[in-house]
């Protein structure tokens, strides 16, 4: 079983761009080489701007490379919930902007001649629960009212039990890693400066722009875009976000029949089934994703991958499970992403809170922020609806209270134990937080029986990290920072590694 996404496993991507080790000046500096950063760069370069992309890992290696490669206008929080919190104009803006983003990806792939396996295909919503039928029908009606060609259907191309289902045609799939990697390569030939393995450890705003610092270099720019999925460092916006991990499992079917489609069920926990190709030829994979939980707050002893494998095995005749992987996503407090100038900033833009719908929202964010910079922050309708500084107390209060109490409860667990458990108790492949000399230490034992000891205090806001048994990582339950067993930052708002002990 491959423990990477099909895109990463097949692409076998290496870093090809240099590390930033000098001072440079550009018009726009972008932190993050995922779909948000690359789209923004594409939009800005096309309009004659000098752009630098500073990526902590390699291009597309973050969440973009771990996504499921599905492009669709529906959203995970569902439009009827957004309607309750906002109004129909907001629903309409989100629907039309997401449709624009799908068309944009198709256009750019064609224009730049990127073979990212883009293909149009239908999206389905179904339920086997009679109590959910009304919800499904309301969602369909709302989308129809806003001009979307969705309708109820009596058949599904996959053998799934359902009592009610809807079909939305003309959605799409693609290989997200090929798309961003190839687009980055095209941008590099047009003068875009790209740096990999260059983590920004400090960002500051000046009167004239921004300065981003890495360990060995510095970027001066008139505008900065933090396209890191969640703002890095300590940021007020993190109180309006919750980090989740979701899981994906891909398998080959015995009958080798893979109909085109993306299928969402309305059950809890939610599952999304889709078909894909890992080699760019005929469809050869069935993928199920879902089973999400708050990052760093997994249920002990719960086998998330096994759960998804069982789900697929119950519904289809599986010949072989080929890939399993996980990815992170962030929920926003009012169900709409935050895209635009950061709170209190004049030159720094953020884009976050995409839910698991990030390929489209990331593309949109790149376009919206690009437009904001090009039009000197003249507010357009999309900019207004996604505004990162919006104040929506009624729509956000329930999330805000619940999630920040949750964070407080995580901090409350940080109590002294007054005892030392011997390391010998830690088995191979396991990790544990132990108290040594009055300090919490994150101790894990790898497959070679080697012990790794790092501080258990998250370098972001000092939450105590928890061992993630599925990924063999240390995950912070407060704001979603993740670290390798050696303490190196993988993702999340943390900018520094866990302290070595």
């Amino acid at each position, binding site marked *: 079983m491959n423990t990477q996404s099909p895109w990463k496993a097949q692409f076998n991507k290496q870093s090809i761009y240099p590390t930033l080790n000098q001072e440079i000046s550009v018009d726009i500096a972008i932190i993050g080489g995922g779909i948000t950063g690359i789209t923004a760069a594409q939009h800005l370069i096309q309009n004659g701007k000098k752009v630098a992309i500073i990526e902590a890992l390699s291009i597309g290696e973050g969440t973009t490379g771990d996504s499921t490669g599905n492009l669709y206008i529906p959203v995970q929080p569902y439009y009827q919930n957004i309607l309750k919190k906002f109004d129909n104009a907001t629903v309409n803006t989100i629907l039309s902007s997401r449709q624009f983003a799908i068309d944009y990806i198709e256009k750019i792939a064609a224009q730049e001649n990127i073979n990212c396996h883009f293909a149009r295909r239908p999206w389905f919503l179904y339920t086997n629960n009679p109590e959910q039928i009304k919800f499904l029908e309301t969602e369909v009606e709302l989308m129809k009212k806003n001009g979307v060609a969705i309708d109820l259907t009596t058949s599904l191309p996959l053998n799934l039990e359902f009592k009610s289902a809807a079909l939305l045609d003309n959605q799409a799939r693609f290989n997200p890693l090929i798309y961003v990697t190839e687009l980055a390569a095209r941008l590099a030939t047009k003068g875009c400066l790209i740096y990999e393995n260059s983590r920004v450890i400090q960002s500051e705003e000046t009167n004239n722009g921004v300065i981003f610092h890495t360990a060995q270099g510095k970027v001066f720019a008139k505008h900065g875009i933090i396209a890191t999925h969640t703002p890095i460092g300590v940021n007020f916006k993190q109180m309006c976000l919750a980090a989740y991990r979701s899981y994906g499992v891909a398998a080959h079917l015995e009958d080798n029949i893979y109909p085109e489609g993306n299928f969402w069920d309305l059950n809890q926990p939610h599952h999304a089934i889709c078909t894909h190709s890992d080699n760019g030829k005929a469809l050869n994979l069935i993928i199920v994703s879902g089973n999400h939980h708050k990052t760093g707050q997994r249920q002990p002893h719960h086998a998330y991958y096994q759960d998804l494998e069982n789900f697929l095995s119950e519904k289809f005749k599986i010949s072989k499970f080929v890939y399993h992987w996980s990815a992170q996503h962030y929920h926003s407090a009012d169900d709409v992403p935050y895209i635009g100038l950061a709170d209190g900033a004049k030159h720094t833009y953020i884009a976050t809170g995409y839910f698991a719908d990030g390929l489209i929202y990331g593309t949109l964010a790149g376009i919206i922020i690009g437009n904001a910079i090009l039009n000197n922050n003249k507010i357009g309708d999309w900019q207004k609806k996604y505004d990162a500084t919006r104040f929506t107390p009624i729509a956000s209060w329930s999330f805000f209270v619940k999630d920040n109490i949750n964070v407080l409860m995580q*901090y*409350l667990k940080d109590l002294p134990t007054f005892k030392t458990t011997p390391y010998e108790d830690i088995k191979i492949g396991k990790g544990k937080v132990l108290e040594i000399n009055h300090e919490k230490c994150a101790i894990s034992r790898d497959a070679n029986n080697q012990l790794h000891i790092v501080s258990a205090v998250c370098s972001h806001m*000092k939450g105590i990290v928890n061992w993630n048994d599925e990924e063999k990582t240390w995950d912070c339950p407060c704001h979603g920072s993740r670290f390798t067993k050696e303490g190196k930052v993988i993702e999340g708002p943390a900018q520094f590694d866990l302290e070595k002990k």
Partner: protein
Amino acid sequence: MLIFIISIFILVALGGIYLISFILRNKNTPKGIAIIHGCGAILGAVLLIIYCIFYKNAPILSLIIFIIAACAGIILLHKDLSNTISPKKLAIFHGVIAILALTSLIIFAYSS
């Protein structure tokens, strides 16, 4: 009621002494204790405000000093969580002010 409030503040102070021992040794404070310490202080301060509202002869000076200590505590927590500065000096200031407030409250209780 004043004795009850003093008892709460003494327990809060014990938590504070435990926490400052970590800061002085450059170790991370257990955030669970820090939150309990903060919640206890809020409870004590709220009760003290209620006391000041309902009694003519009230320890207003102690209340003011406690509020200063509380403000320092909030800044301390923020600085600590956001890794902005080493909070040693601020922690000592917060502790000294809080002890001063507690002492003045005890003196008030036994002199009135």
